[in-house]
C-alpha cells in the first residue's frame, strides 16, 4: 500500500473516524484505524463495535493495500505534521512509513484481516433530514439522556418519524427533553433508540450546514449517511417510555420569563446552592414576579425577576443543574413554564413555536 494525500484532509478524516475508536480496548486492533485503498480514494474506518464510522478522502493511490494503525498515535503525529503532502507507505510486517517534507515516522501497525467490518445496511427508504436540524435536535435533547444503566433504554434518545414530523426525545427520570422538526419524507412510522454516546459523537461530526443527511433504520442498526462519511450505530433494544403520557396537558400556573435574565439569576443562585451539596434553588411565583432563593452554609441568594404570571401562586424547588442544562441548550429568548403543584412536573417551552418541550421534575422538601 502506498498513497499520498494532503495533511489537512488526512487529519480531518482521522479525527472523524477516531470518534468511534475506544481509547482502551482489550483488543489492540480496536484501538486502531483501518486504512484501505479503494481505486482512487482512501477509506478510513474506526469502530468500537457499538459505533462505527467510515470516511473517504481523495488520495493519490500508488499501490493498493490496507493496514490498521493505532489511532491515538496516528492522529497525534498527523496533527503535528506541517500542512503539506503526506506520503504513506506500507512496509513489511505491517509497519507504516509516513513521510512529510523533512519528517519521516515509522509506525507499527496490525494486519487488517481481523478488523471488524461494519454491518451492511441497505439504504432503503432513507429519511432525509437537514444537518442543521439534526444537530439542533441532538444539542437540545442529549443532556437529558440517562447516565446510569439501571434503565438501559433511557441511556439513548428516541428518534421517531411520522407523517413528515421527526421527534427526538431523551429522558432520564428527572427531566425530559423533546425536539420536533419537519422533514420532507413520505416514509411511514419509524422509531429507533440511539445510544446517547453514539448520538453525541454524531452531533460532533455533523456540521451545521443546510445539506441533507440520510438516516436508514434497520432492526439492529441505524446508519447516518453524510456522503463521504457513514456513521453506523447499534440501536438500543426495548420499548422506550411512552413520553406522550408523561407530559401533562393542563396547568394551574403559567409563567413567561426572559431566558437570559433567568439564566443569569439561576447561575448566581447556583453558586451558593452548589456549596450545599444538593444544588437546590427555590422558586416563588407570586405578584407577577419570580423570586429565586438558595442557601447553604456559605450564604444566601435572593433573586427577583419580573414575569408574566397567570394562575395560582406557587412555591417550588428544583435542582439548579437540571434547569441550567436546558437554558444553556436552547437559543430562544423567552420561555413559558407551566406548573401544577410543587411535586408535579414543570413543562417548559419556548414562547415561539411548540417544537421544543422540556419537562422538569421538582425536588420535594419535607418538613
Amino acid at each position, binding site marked *: 500500500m502506498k498513497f499520498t494525500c494532503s495533511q489537512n484532509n488526512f487529519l480531518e478524516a482521522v479525527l472523524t473516524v477516531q470518534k468511534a475508536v475506544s481509547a482502551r480496548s482489550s483488543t489492540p486492533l480496536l484501538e486502531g484505524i483501518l486504512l484501505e485503498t479503494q481505486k482512487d480514494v482512501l477509506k478510513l474506518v474506526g469502530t468500537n463495535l457499538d459505533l462505527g464510522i467510515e470516511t473517504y478522502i481523495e488520495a493519490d493511490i500508488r499501490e493498493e493495500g490496507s493496514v490498521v494503525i493505532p489511532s491515538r498515535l496516528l492522529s497525534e503525529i498527523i496533527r503535528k505534521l506541517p500542512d503539506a503532502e503526506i506520503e504513506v507507505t506500507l512496509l513489511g510486517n505491517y509497519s507504516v512509513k509516513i513521510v512529510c517534507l523533512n519528517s519521516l515516522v515509522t509506525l507499527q501497525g496490525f494486519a487488517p484481516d481481523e478488523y471488524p467490518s461494519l454491518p451492511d445496511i441497505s439504504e432503503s427508504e432513507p429519511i432525509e433530514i437537514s444537518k442543521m436540524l439534526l444537530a439542533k435536535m441532538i444539542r437540545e435533547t442529549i443532556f437529558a439522556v440517562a447516565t*446510569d444503566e*439501571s434503565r438501559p433504554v433511557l441511556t439513548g434518545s428516541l428518534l421517531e418519524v411520522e407523517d413528515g414530523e421527526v421527534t427526538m426525545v431523551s429522558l432520564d*427520570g*428527572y427531566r425530559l427533553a423533546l425536539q420536533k422538526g419537519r422533514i420532507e419524507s413520505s416514509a411511514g412510522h419509524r422509531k429507533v433508540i440511539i445510544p446517547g454516546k453514539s448520538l453525541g459523537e454524531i452531533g460532533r461530526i455533523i456540521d451545521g450546514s443546510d445539506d441533507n443527511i440520510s438516516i436508514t433504520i434497520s432492526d439492529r442498526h441505524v446508519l447516518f449517511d453524510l456522503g463521504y462519511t457513514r456513521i453506523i450505530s447499534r440501536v438500543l433494544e426495548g420499548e422506550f417510555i411512552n413520553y406522550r403520557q*408523561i407530559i401533562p396537558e393542563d396547568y394551574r400556573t403559567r409563567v413567561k420569563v426572559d431566558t437570559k435574565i433567568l439564566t443569569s439569576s439561576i447561575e448566581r443562585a447556583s453558586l451558593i446552592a452548589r456549596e*450545599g451539596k444538593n444544588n*437546590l434553588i427555590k422558586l416563588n411565583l407570586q405578584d407577577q414576579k419570580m423570586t429565586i432563593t438558595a442557601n447553604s452554609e456559605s450564604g444566601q441568594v435572593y433573586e427577583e425577576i419580573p414575569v408574566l404570571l397567570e394562575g395560582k401562586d406557587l412555591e417550588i424547588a428544583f435542582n439548579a443543574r437540571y434547569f441550567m442544562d436546558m437554558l444553556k441548550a436552547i437559543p430562544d429568548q423567552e420561555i413559558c413554564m407551566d406548573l401544577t403543584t410543587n411535586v408535579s412536573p414543570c413543562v417548559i417551552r419556548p414562547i415561539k413555536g411548540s417544537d421544543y418541550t422540556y419537562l422538569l421534575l421538582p425536588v420535594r422538601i419535607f418538613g
Partner: protein
Amino acid sequence: MAVIRKLDNRTVNQIAAGEVVERPASIVKELVENSIDAGASAITVEIEQGGVSLIRVTDNGIGMDRDDAEMSFHRHATSKISDADDLDRINSLGFRGEALASIAAVTQLEMITRQPEAVSGWHIINHGGQIIDISETGCPEGTTVLVRNLFYNTPARLKFLKSSRSEAAAVSDLLAKLILANPSVSIKYISNGSTVYHSPGNGRLLSAIISVYGKNIKSDLIPVETHQENGLTVSGFIGKPALYRSNRTHQSFYVNSRYVRSPLLSQCIEEAVKEQTMINRFPWCVIKIALPAAEVDVNVHPSKTEIRFRNPAAVSGFLSAAIKKAVMAAPYVPAVFHTSSSDHKHHHKEQKAVNVNVDKQNEYPPKSENESNRKAIQEEMLPKYGMKNEEGDHTINVSDFMKLNIIGTAFSTFILAESDTELYIIDQHAAHERLIYEQLKKSIMKQEVVSQQLLPPFILEVTHDEFIAVTDNMESFLTVGFEIEPFGGKSFLIRGIPVILKEANISEIFHELLDRTDSRTGQAKLLLQDEDIIKVSCKKAVKAHDRLSQQEIRSLLKDMDEKRIPLTCPHGRPILISMSKYELEKKFKRIQ
C-alpha cells in the same frame, strides 16, 4: 423380622458423646462449667499431653452426695433445671444434663467429691460409661474429676485429634475465655506441669484480662460501662487501635457470663469504631452483656456458643452506643516507643510455674485451692501486675492542644508540639481532614430532607425478604429522601430519591441502602453519602507539604480543642502520635 431396633445405652452414649466431646477442650469446658455452676471460687485445671492422657479439674464447690454423684453419670440427669419452663430462666452454664454422661462414655473417669458438711467424700470410677467402683474416701470439699485416656474405646475418633500441642492450645484458648467470663472465680491452668494462667478471681474483669493477656495490655484498654433500666448492662473493655488485629479471634463476647460467638455483636462493635479502624483490621474487645435470662435463648446448639436475643435491636443499639461513648471519652494517641505487647506467650514466660503439681496416679490435689488460700493468691498477684500503675497511658486530654508549645513542623507535613512530658507529632492533613469531615457531616445532618421527584417512577423488583424489610422501614427510607410506595406483588414504586445521589444507579443504591439498613433498628443510613463526605474533606484539607504558618497551626490546634474530634482521620489513620520525654531520655541512654 424387625429391622429397626432400639440401640443399647452404651451405643447411645457413644453417639451422643460425639456431639459434646469433640476434643480435650470440650471436656475441659464441660467440667469447668460444672465447677462454676457448683459455686466454686477456685478451680484448677491440669492437662497432660494436650489433655489426651489426662485432664484433671479440681474445684472447691458444693460437691455431691453419693446418690447425686451416681446419678450425674446418667444422660439428661441434671440439677440445673427441672422442666422445660426452666429453660427460660437458665442462669447456669450447663443445663442439658449430657456432659458427664458423654465424657464418661469415651474415657476412663474418676470422680472424688465431698459436700462441705459431709465428713467424708465419695470416689467413683467410671470406665466407658460403666461405674466400676464406688468407695467412701477422705478428701477436700468440692469435686475433682480426673479424665484419662480420651477415646480409649473409640480409636477411630482418637485418630482425628490433632497434635497434643494444638489440643493444648485449644484448651488454653478455652480457659482464657472462661477466665474472662468468670473474673470472680480464681482459675488456674497447668499444662504439662507449668502454670499457664492463674487468675486472681477478685471479681475484677481487668485482673482477669491481665492474667490472660499480660499486664502491658492495660494501657491499651478503654473501659466500657453502661447500664439500662430494663436490666441490660454492657461492661468490659475495648482495645485501642494498637490492639486491632487482622482477624476477629480477639473479640470475646460474654452474654450472662457465657462465651458466645455472635456476628451481630461483632458487627456492632466494628460499626461503632469504624472511623478509627483501618481496612482489614478488627477491634479487640472483651465485652460482657448481662440481661434477664428470658431475653436470650442459649439452647440453640449443644456447644451453647450460639445464642439468640429476643430483641436484637435493643441489644445492638445499646452496645453500639456504649462503645461509641467509651471510645469518644478516651482519645487515642499512638506512642512512638510503645512497649505494649499483648500476646500471651510473652506472658507465659514471665509467670513462673508457682504450684507445680504433676499428677501421680492416686494423689489427690493438695488443699491449696480453697477459700483461705485464695485470698492469699489474690493479694500476691495484685501488686505484681501493677494494677495501680498509671504509667504508659498515652491519652491526652482533648481540650489541651492549645496548651501545647508548638515547636514547628517537620517536612512541612508534621506539626511538632510539646507538653511538659510528651512530644506530639501531628499530621496536618489528617487533622484538618477530620475537622472538615466532622463539620460537613454536621451540616448535612442539619439539612432538610429533599427528594428529587422521578418521572416515570422507578419500579423496583425485590425479593420477599427485601419486600418485608422495605415495608417495615418505609418511614426510615423517607427520612433520607426515598419516596416509596408498594406497587403490587413484590415491587415498589420509587417516586423520589435523595437529591444528593445525583444520577447514580437507583436500584444499586437502593439495594445497598437496604443491606445497610439495620433490620434491628430500622435506621436507614446513607453511607454512600459518608464516602462522599470523606472524599470532599480529603480534597479540602491542607495537604502534606503545604507549608503552614504559626497562625495556621495555632488555629488548627484550637479547632481540635474546640471540636473534640476523634483522633483518627476518617480513613482510620491516626492524627497524632506521641513520644514521652522519659522514652526519649531512655533512647539516649540518659537513664537506664
